[in-house]
């Protein structure tokens, strides 16, 4: 669990750093794209390796394979975006963030159904999604889109860090 906490804090800090990069550095979004490419490729390969060595023999294990393939797919697609107008890169990045916001919302409702903690997840998901929608509405203004995207990265990163520092809700049957 301590590994998970550290991971969440690091990913939160990374999101905030990316937001700064995108604003401060010319074409900073390429760094974000590169980070997505590396992280998703690594995660995809890890999941696929885990499937073939372990989850293949498990009831329902094929979902691990699907997850790995999906991640690899998203990573490969990110890698092909180096030669397109920046606005398309922004749309892609906003799309990824919106997807994570939607997943947070679904997870929040699922957690609520089984009486686990859900409010922070829902809040994070809703804020992320709203900012992404705002960014899409402002698509004609590239600067505005960039700033709104960075704001949602910062808020998302900040909430990840806050969540990581909360007492863990762990339910271990002994």
């Amino acid at each position: 669990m301590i590994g998970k906490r550290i991971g969440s804090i690091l990913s939160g800090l990374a999101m905030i750093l990316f937001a700064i990069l995108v604003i401060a550095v010319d074409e900073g979004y390429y760094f974000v794209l590169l980070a997505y490419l590396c992280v998703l490729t690594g995660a995809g390969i890890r999941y696929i390796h885990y499937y073939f060595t372990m989850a293949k023999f498990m009831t329902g294990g094929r979902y691990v394979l699907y997850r790995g393939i999906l991640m690899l797919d998203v990573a490969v697609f990110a890698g092909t975006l180096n030669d397109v107008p920046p606005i398309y890169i922004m749309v892609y990045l906003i799309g990824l963030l919106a997807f994570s916001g939607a997943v947070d919302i679904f997870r929040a409702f699922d957690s609520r159904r089984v009486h686990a903690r859900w409010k922070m997840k829902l809040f994070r998901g809703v804020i992320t999604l709203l900012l992404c929608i705002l960014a899409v509405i402002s698509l004609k203004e590239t600067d505005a889109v960039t700033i709104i995207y960075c704001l949602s990265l910062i808020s998302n990163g900040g909430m990840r860090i806050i969540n990581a520092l909360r007492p863990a809700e762990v339910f271990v049957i002994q």
Partner: protein
Amino acid sequence: MNGDFHYYATYCAAVIAGYSHPEAMDICYCAQFVDHCTKTILNSINGPEYAATTQLQSEMIDMKTDKNGLREITRIWASFHFLPRDLYAERPGTTTRYLKKYRMIAGPNGDLVKDTVELAKNNTLQAVGIAMHVLADTWAHANFAGTPSFVINNTDNYFDELIPTDNGFKRRHIEFGHNPAAKENPEKGEYTASIYQASENSIMNLGHGRAGHLPDYSFIRYAYVPAWNDYYEIIKDNPHDYLHAFAQMVYALQYLRGMSSSFEKDTYAWEAVAPYEDEIKRLIAVRRTDDTEDWKALGERITGQTIRPFRLDEYFEEYRRVSKKDRTDTFLEAFFDAAMDHKNMIIQRIVESGNDIAGKPVNLDSEGSR
């Protein structure tokens, strides 16, 4: 299993097997203490950390789940609560990595149970108590592994309770809640379990967490699909298993008292249990989460003595009062010795099977107690 079985039922088994009231009290205290002897408790009384037989939630929450952390977790849980049934189990077509975890699945009547009981022969009552806890848990915790593993210990939504009716059983779907503070209600079928966590080494995937407390309720029968069983359903019949656990404990205790020359697997003291079998079946079958009162009443009726309630710190003062070199004669020192010997024995067996999942046994002379 819970305190009602580890403490009171073990007492009953001990007196039926011929132990005296004071001996049975020592045995059942130790059987129950296995569920409490954590590093935290040991540190509070300056006991040897290696003697830990369980872990607190708070100890596990912030534990690293790297190789050493996993070994630390596995040593404790596989040794005392999820004794592996078959360290040489085969599953064709799987990888070595998978087999290492597959072979940790617990179950009754494995070779390690025989080793556990034999280790307690001509040993202290503390060793006997530990052996009884381990034996009982092989029945309750069967089909789960004492090592964090998503691919072994996970379960899915296919979880039905089998409720007895006049002509068989009816199935009622179990939807687990995940609120640790929620009270369970067997009448309404409201149970809690650990949350789904698709991470191989997460502690949420340790033992029977994904089945909640169901393995520890004597009355319940349920059908589910464990992650390792290739989509086949398993029916867990706790009333059957608890009765067999009790009868096997009596048999083991008779062996340890010298009433038989060997301990064989899949053997039960049905003759000795017979006078009490109907009552035990009845009390096991009652839909409740705690059978303490009935087990206590049975034990007190058999001996005519009062079974004092389990008090965790019963022997702490005695242990704290003496200096380290004078601890040899204390009650708890004997427990710690027996726990460390048992843990080392199990780890050694796991190592001999070619599995490094629990690390290596330690040199007990360097662990402080001896």
